[in-house]
């Protein structure tokens, strides 16, 4: 949707929320006991705050040494994060834009967790005569140097904890607000007025290859990365050819798998430093880099619009240069970064040109332009802004629809109750209680029926698994025999070729016949490979065999289960309609003709199994063997000729260690069975999960909310009953007020429908335009 349209829709939604909230405040004063009204108020207030302020978090992930910190520093316009060449063991850090914060401020919301950890480390390390000295972590730190130091200390605490055998309390870091946060004014965003209603943060998070042994940390980062508004994946473009290219490709692929394609933007850092295309930082080189990378590294599967060549280093130096000029009017030669700045931004004889403010400023602007940093940032912000807006709008529309529906029912019930006599009302309230009881009984019946079906499915699954495993066992056995036969045949052949001379031996040593040998091997069920590749090929075949079996089990279960669940859902929905329908209609009649009670409806959710191939590894063991090397001399040759008793005359004898790769049928079978049992267990769990998620949970939830709704309406009738019993006033004034209220809520419902229509219409226009 176009920005202006977004704003307009946003305004309309906010206006509807305002109207509904002022109505709800007024209504809740008159209905103090109605908790649902307070709940509705909370829901709408929450939606209102989401529409007022957008929270953007852009995760920055990088392949090794790709320039992730440089990029963050470039956007911020100062060196806010230390360069970190080693693998990261600490938590992700947030860098948040705060207008007016020229000096960075670090906040550590979970400082108690760190301090507790420090105490534990010190306790443990004292016992081991090993002393670590950490400062107590404060809540806030100001200034760059202090921040660097504290971030390093946090990193060390986590690392040391692992070293002394304490598992860092990663489970304490669930929400994004639990992470350390640096607040500073982003030079890039300083003048951007259009982003005033946004909270903008960069999340410095380790990439998938940056963990050592901290799996939990990987999970935390993955979760936060997936929840981010967008992900910038920084890739070192200079590493795309030669030895590193395969590694980079793997890293990019695994990163994309880790974070997903749709909101990922790839930044090809250092594209201007790539040797093969000198002077690349022009339009031609820029496009070339984009196309080359997309074609060779992403196999054209990734939207080329999301690939951006950049030079983070130039952008960084240009930005700090401009910031320094803005702050102090000149660049002091004593500054630590001046040398790099001069070399990169000004070029040859930079010292002499440093005092010319205009020249330096022009160079900085030029370098900033050539760094191409603007386009990805602008594009990513625009895209994220749109998606955040549509997300907030969608959620607000849903909340408003629900609240309007609740209120409409309540008002209709009240209006109806005022029109009824006291006796009718009393009868009504008693009957509603009965209806709720009936409803609960029927829902219990549905759950029992579902559980019976679930048990039946589990039994079927067990039977299926037994059959399939037996089938697999048979096939595996056959395959083993075939393989052993072919290996044995090959060996016999080669023995014949190699050992031609021994056929003329005078003293034939009794050897096992090929047939006997084969039987023995089959009985042993073990194949040994000297060639690792051959062992791998063999294992690959076995894995394929297991996969075929597993996919057969899965397909069969999938088909059966789908049919079963589909049928069950249809039956249950019919039953709900048949048994609950008349009750719901009765309730509707009793509460008022405009009250709409929605029957619980079971809908199928998508769910699929994730089958992990059990890693079947061949065992590797060292063996020693005696090697006979022919003696070179004529004496040696002579000795070999007269060695009629195979005594290895004429050979030098020595021992050699070698690796054998053995595959045992029994072991494979047992591992495969284990794998299959594991998968079966997974499928069983999944089946149970599906029944739980698709049927039991929705039925319970919906019945629960249905009962709550009917109870609420019943309470409201009871209140009116008591009002009627105790007051002698004319009720027509109340009825008139209710009519007006109803009209107002209906109008808001109409407005919501209009907004939905507008959104639909625009989406259609957008799609047809594409």
């Amino acid at each position, binding site marked *: 949707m176009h920005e202006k349209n977004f704003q307009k829709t946003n*305004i*309309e939604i906010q*206006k509807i929320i305002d109207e509904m909230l*002022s109505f709800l405040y007024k209504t809740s004063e008159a209905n103090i006991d109605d908790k649902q009204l307070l709940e509705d108020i909370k829901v709408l207030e929450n939606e209102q705050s989401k529409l007022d302020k957008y929270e953007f978090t852009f995760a920055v992930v990088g392949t090794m040494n790709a320039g992730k910190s440089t990029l963050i520093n470039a956007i911020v316009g100062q060196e806010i994060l230390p360069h970190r060449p080693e693998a990261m063991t600490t938590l992700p850090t947030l860098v948040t834009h705060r207008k007016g914060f020229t000096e960075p401020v670090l906040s550590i919301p979970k400082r108690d967790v760190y301090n507790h950890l420090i105490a534990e480390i010190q306790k443990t390390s004292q016992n081991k005569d090993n002393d670590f000295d950490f400062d107590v972590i404060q809540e806030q730190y100001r200034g760059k140097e202090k921040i660097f130091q504290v971030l390093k200390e946090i990193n060390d605490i986590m690392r040391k904890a692992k070293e002394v055998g304490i598992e860092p309390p990663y489970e304490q870091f669930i929400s994004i607000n639990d992470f350390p946060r640096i607040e500073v004014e982003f030079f890039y965003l300083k003048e951007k007025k259009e982003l005033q209603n946004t909270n903008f943060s960069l999340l410095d998070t380790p990439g998938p290859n940056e963990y050592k042994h901290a799996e939990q940390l990987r999970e935390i980062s993955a979760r936060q990365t997936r929840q981010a508004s967008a992900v910038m994946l920084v890739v070192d473009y200079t590493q795309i050819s030669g030895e590193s290219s395969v590694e980079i490709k793997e890293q990019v692929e695994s990163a994309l798998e880790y974070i997903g394609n749709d909101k990922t933007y790839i930044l090809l850092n250092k594209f201007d430093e790539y040797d093969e295309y000198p002077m690349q930082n022009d339009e031609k080189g820029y496009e070339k880099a984009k196309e080359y990378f997309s074609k060779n590294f992403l196999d054209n599967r990734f939207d080329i619009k999301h690939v951006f060549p950049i030079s983070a280093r130039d952008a960084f130096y240009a930005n700090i240069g401009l910031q320094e000029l803005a702050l102090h009017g000149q660049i002091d030669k004593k500054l630590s970064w001046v040398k790099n700045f001069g070399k990169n931004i000004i070029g040859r004889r930079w010292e002499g040109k440093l005092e010319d403010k205009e020249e330096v400023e022009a160079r900085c602007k030029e370098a900033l332009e050539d760094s191409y940093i603007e386009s990805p940032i602008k594009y990513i912000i625009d895209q994220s802004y749109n998606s955040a807006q549509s997300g907030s709008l969608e959620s607000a529309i849903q909340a408003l629809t629900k609240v309007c529906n609740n209120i409409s029912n309540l008002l209709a019930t009240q209006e109806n109750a005022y029109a009824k006599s006291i006796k009718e009302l009393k009868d009504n309230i008693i009957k509603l209680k009965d209806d709720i009881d009936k409803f609960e009984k029927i829902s219990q019946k549905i759950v029992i029926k579902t559980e019976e079906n679930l048990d039946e499915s589990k039994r079927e699954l067990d039977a299926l698994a037994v059959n399939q495993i037996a089938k697999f066992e048979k096939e595996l056995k056959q395959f083993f025999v075939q393989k052993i036969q072919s290996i044995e045949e090959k060996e016999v052949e080669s023995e014949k070729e190699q050992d031609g001379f021994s056929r003329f031996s005078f003293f034939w040593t009794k050897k096992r016949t090929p047939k006997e040998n084969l039987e023995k091997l089959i009985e042993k069920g073990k194949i040994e490979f000297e060639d690792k590749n051959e062992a791998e090929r063999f294992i690959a075949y076995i894995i394929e065999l297991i996969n075929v079996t597993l996919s057969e089990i899965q397909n069969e279960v999938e088909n059966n289960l789908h049919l079963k669940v589909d049928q069950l859902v249809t039956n249950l929905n019919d039953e709900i309609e048949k048994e609950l329908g008349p009750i719901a209609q009765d309730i509707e009649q009793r509460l008022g003709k405009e009250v709409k009670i929605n029957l619980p409806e079971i809908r199928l959710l998508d769910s699929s199994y994730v089958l992990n191939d059990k890693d079947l590894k061949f065992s590797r063991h060292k063996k020693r063997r005696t090697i006979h090397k022919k003696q070179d001399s004529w004496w040696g040759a002579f000795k070999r000729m007269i060695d009629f008793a195979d005594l290895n005359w004429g050979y030098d004898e020595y021992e050699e260690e070698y690796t054998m790769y053995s595959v045992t049928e029994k072991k494979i079978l047992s591992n495969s069975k284990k794998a299959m049992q594991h998968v079966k267990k997974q499928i069983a769990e999944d089946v149970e999960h599906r029944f739980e998620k698709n049927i039991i949970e929705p039925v319970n939830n919906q019945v629960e909310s249905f009962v709550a709704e009917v109870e609420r309406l019943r309470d409201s009738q009871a209140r009116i009953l008591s009002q009627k019993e105790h007051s002698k006033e004319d009720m027509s004034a109340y009825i008139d007020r209710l009519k007006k209220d109803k*009209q*107002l809520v209906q109008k808001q419902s109409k*407005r919501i429908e*209009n907004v939905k229509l507008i959104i639909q219409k625009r989406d259609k226009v957008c799609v047809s335009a594409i």
Partner: protein
Amino acid sequence: MCVSNLEFNILPVDDNDAIHQLQQKYLYIEEKVVLDLVNGIGTVAKDLNENAKKREKGFSRLWDDFFGDSKKRQNQINENVIEGLKAASIWLQDHDRHISRIDMRIKDIADILYETRNEIVQFYREFENVSDRVALLENFKKNADGRFALIEEKLARIEAQQQIDREVENIGFLNLPLELEIFTVLDNLASGEFGIWYTFTSDKQKQEELKYLKNKIKSKIGKQKINDWIDFYELYNLVRKLDKKEQKAIAFISAQYRQFNRDPYYDGIDLIKLLGTSKNYDEFEEAISSKSHIRTYFPLEEFIEDMAEYMMDT
């Protein structure tokens, strides 16, 4: 003092030509001006009563006398009342051409004024002729009572529907933007004889008549246009092209409706008022954005439905 109620007194009441011109399109504009003035007097009378009661004793009165607040307030009221009474009396003396719902409203206010005439006369004793002017209202009240009683008999249902048909036929020929043509047609119906008949008829009859009216307008406009959204930008620019007097008339009429029915449900009337009063489009857009009861997206069909309900019931 609730002077804000008089803020809509924006038409040049002395300019007979201007009123005459506007009357070609806005049939009851003259009555509306008088109503506005009489309503002003009514408000003043009410305010006087309340103030007089509050301040007739004790420290407040002394304070007012000492600082001259009492005199200031009195002068402010006097100007409005004298102006209003002057215009109202001229009109009331000449009035015999037709009877409308506006007359009914004037009569209602006159009833209140008649009841409080003693206070008014006492307060305005320094203006000699005020007493006579107020007496005119008394005469008007007496005459009107009988005339309104006959209206339901006079206007049978068929005739009421014929009036609807006649007025709706004007849509497309009033040289106004479509939304304003609808508004004008509805106003002419609501302010005239049809309006009086509608007031006195049964609820059931009202519903049927309202439905007939809405359908008549919708079919006149055609299915295609009915489903359109009102284009605020285009509408605003079309209104700006109208004669200044006409823009004022639209603002005046819509404001008068709001004086008598403040139900926030009906946002269409505020939209019309804003069209006539906003200085530029930004101001208009800003006003729409800041008033939560006004729809940002207004389908023409909803405009017709709501405006018909609102204007007929006001």
